[in-house]
């Protein structure tokens, strides 16, 4: 490896003015813009979580009123789901990496890409406006008829914000699909693609097929509130449950929008730090598509107790078990990749380990919830909260942080401090489990979600959870500090600090030049060819 010097001409030095950033069509800069914006929203959503975790420290509702509590968890849910998790890995790292990984100069539609960021910011500002003028209390799920008829809060404004933000996600998904189809470097066949690309392709399919349905569901709520045209209004024979069907047709697959990109990240990290090709590469690749397809067939498992017919419930339950198969294929194949690998415990790998363990717990408890009889018992309790936080925080955010630590040297050209980063990975893992594991018990014992006061016998678990949240919070703040520090004082990373395979590591500098590659690379080998054999593949 050559001595680590930073190239003088790279995408970061191509212009320093604010205008050069706000009018850029460089996918790498847009990725950075997204990274900054979603970090902001993550902090907003996190702040709400701090407040309601403090409220839940004691059984009576003494810190905030019931109304404020409703607004806080709604704020947390909406901001975290729509403005952080959905864009997180795809919009920040996908934007940055998809062209680099497939050997292209940019995405297929660079201007559309910039537009997607502006649309995202616009949608986010509408959402913030709704929050600052008084908030929304419907929960992130906007269930009718509460959201359409009864809630006196700023639902319409928020609905407009989410509707707009949906377009940014569609633009990104569309761009990825076309780019992956049409812009792969010579020799880069589908089964030579990094699994990160497969995951993003599957994610983009879900985005493109699902988001419009959420848009129309939200639009109908807005139309009902603004014009009194009430398609879900029971007073004129409408069915509020139809909203839940439309909503979950998007919002269940949306869980896979959040988790699939992180699965792609984990595949990259596990291969790199065990110095092996991913075991059963094709199965992992196809599993991403299988998750995308099955993901569209299970939405009814959110509605087992919502007067859905028993037969529909049976089918949705069965299909929900089916989704576990491709997910398990991935987990087993990552584990098998570790076998006889030369494993290095660098920070990204710690996050990948965290992902695999926590996602497994989140996934298996998902099967509990997909079981009709058991779901009746734990439905709308903290068991559900714990389950999906194991997927979304333990899974998706672990993957996000893994990506941040793995590709930070590529994005900035600098290394962060090893000790601090490992320390924070560790306390995030501890803090996370302390926050959410007690919630499984709470839910099983029957504590319902979305209440600001609770019976005293639940207090000990809530104290544990709040204590864990404070550790988790610290774990999220430390990386912000050492990553910023690394920008100024970090050691130059060199093109490939991890000795990783992949075009973004082997064929370009860190940070990459504006047009990514000095010349478009030609690919002659399989992905993850760490053993150096199989040249012709």
């Amino acid at each position, binding site marked *: 490896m050559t001595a680590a010097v930073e190239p003088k001409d790279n995408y970061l030095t191509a212009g320093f003015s604010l205008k050069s950033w706000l009018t850029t069509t460089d996918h790498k800069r847009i990725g950075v813009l997204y990274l900054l914006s979603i970090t902001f929203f993550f902090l907003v959503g996190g702040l709400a979580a701090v407040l309601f975790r403090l409220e839940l420290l004691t059984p009576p509702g003494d810190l905030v009123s019931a109304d404020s509590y409703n607004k806080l968890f709604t704020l947390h849910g909406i901001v975290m789901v729509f403005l952080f998790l959905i864009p997180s890995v795809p919009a920040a790292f996908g934007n940055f990496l998809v062209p680099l990984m497939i050997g*292209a*100069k940019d995405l*297929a*539609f660079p201007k*559309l890409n910039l537009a997607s960021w502006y649309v995202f910011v616009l949608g986010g500002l509408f959402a913030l406006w709704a929050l600052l003028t008084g908030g929304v209390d419907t929960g992130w799920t906007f269930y009718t008829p509460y959201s359409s008829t009864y809630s006196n809060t700023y639902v319409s404004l928020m609905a407009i914000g989410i509707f707009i933000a949906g377009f940014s996600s*569609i633009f990104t998904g*569309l*761009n990825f*699909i*076309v780019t992956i*189809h*049409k*812009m*792969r*470097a*010579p*020799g*880069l*066949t589908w089964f030579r693609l990094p699994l990160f690309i497969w995951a993003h392709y599957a994610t983009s399919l879900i985005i*493109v*097929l*699902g*988001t*419009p*349905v959420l*848009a*129309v*569901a939200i639009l*109908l709520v807005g*139309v009902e509130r603004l*014009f*009194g*045209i*009430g*398609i879900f209004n029971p*007073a*004129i*024979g*409408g*069915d509020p449950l*139809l909203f839940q*069907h*439309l909503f979950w*047709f998007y919002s269940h697959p949306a869980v896979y929008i959040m988790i699939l990109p992180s699965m792609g990240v984990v595949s990259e990290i596990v291969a790199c730090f065990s110095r092996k090709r991913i075991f059963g590469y094709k199965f992992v690749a196809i599993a991403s598509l299988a998750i995308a397809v099955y993901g569209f067939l299970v939405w009814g498992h959110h509605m087992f107790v919502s007067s859905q017919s028993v037969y529909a419930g049976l089918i949705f339950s069965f299909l929900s078990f089916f989704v576990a198969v491709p997910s398990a294929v991935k987990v087993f194949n990552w584990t098998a990749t570790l076998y006889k690998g030369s494993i290095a415990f660098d920070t990204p790998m710690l996050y990948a380990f965290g992902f695999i363990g926590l996602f497994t717990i989140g996934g298996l408890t998902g099967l509990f919830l997909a079981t009709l009889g058991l779901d009746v018992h734990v439905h709308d309790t903290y068991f559900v909260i714990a389950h999906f936080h194991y997927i979304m925080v333990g899974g998706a955010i672990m993957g996000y942080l893994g990506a941040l630590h793995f590709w930070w040297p590529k994005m900035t050209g600098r290394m962060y401090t090893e000790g601090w980063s490992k320390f924070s990975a560790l306390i995030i893992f501890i803090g996370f489990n302390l926050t959410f594991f007690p919630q499984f018990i709470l839910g099983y014992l029957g504590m319902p979600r979305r209440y600001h006061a609770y019976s005293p016998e639940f207090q000990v678990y809530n104290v544990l959870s709040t204590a864990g949240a404070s550790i988790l919070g610290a774990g999220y703040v430390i990386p912000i500090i050492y990553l910023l520090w690394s920008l100024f004082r970090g050691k130059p990373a060199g093109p490939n600090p991890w000795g990783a395979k992949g075009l973004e590591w082997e064929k370009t500098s860190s940070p990459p030049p504006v047009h990514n590659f000095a*010349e*478009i690379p030609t690919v002659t080998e399989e992905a993850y060819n760490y053993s150096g054999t199989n040249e012709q593949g």
Partner: protein
Amino acid sequence: MTETSAHQEDMSWQRETSLLGVWVFLLTEVLFFGGLFTGYAVYRSGYPDIFSEASRHLNVLLGTVNTAVLLTSSLTMAFAVASAQEGKRRPLLIYLFLTIALGLVFLGIKSTEYHHKFVEKLIPGAHFSYSGLSTREVQLFFSFYFVMTGLHALHMIAGIGVLAVLAFLVWRKKLDPSRNALVEGTGLYWHFVDVVWIFLFPLFYLIGLRA
């Protein structure tokens, strides 16, 4: 694959890429309207007779004329695409203009229909009034009617806007239509909007004819 990096520059590659983008976009549109068609299907299977009854309040003649207008506009759009591909500027401009004109005729007829419904107090909401048997579900029918034809009309307006910009660029010679897929992509979109109407027309206007 043996092509070099140059393939990313060449014209047919650019054309294919743009058109793939349009197709993916149309896929999102199918799902967008799909949600509404699903809702329609649910309620119509729940209240089949009431939907037929309500349907009789729509003007089948105007609906039929509008269908003919829109189908003709798709024809002129197809001619526009063909002219663009052959690089014939004048015919292209004429066909774009005709398409825009037919689109405007469609919207004009649509707005007269809306006006009739307003006069008859059939617009859902506070001022809805209907003297027949089942006020509630009739209002539901009209909710779907206005939301779905309204969104269709918004798509038409957007399409007319794009066509107008294209026509302006071609007229001022700022755009060589044979060198890119702009006209062809717009054409795909226009045909899609037309196809949506092909479904809307029978589902709203014709279901009451049988009885």
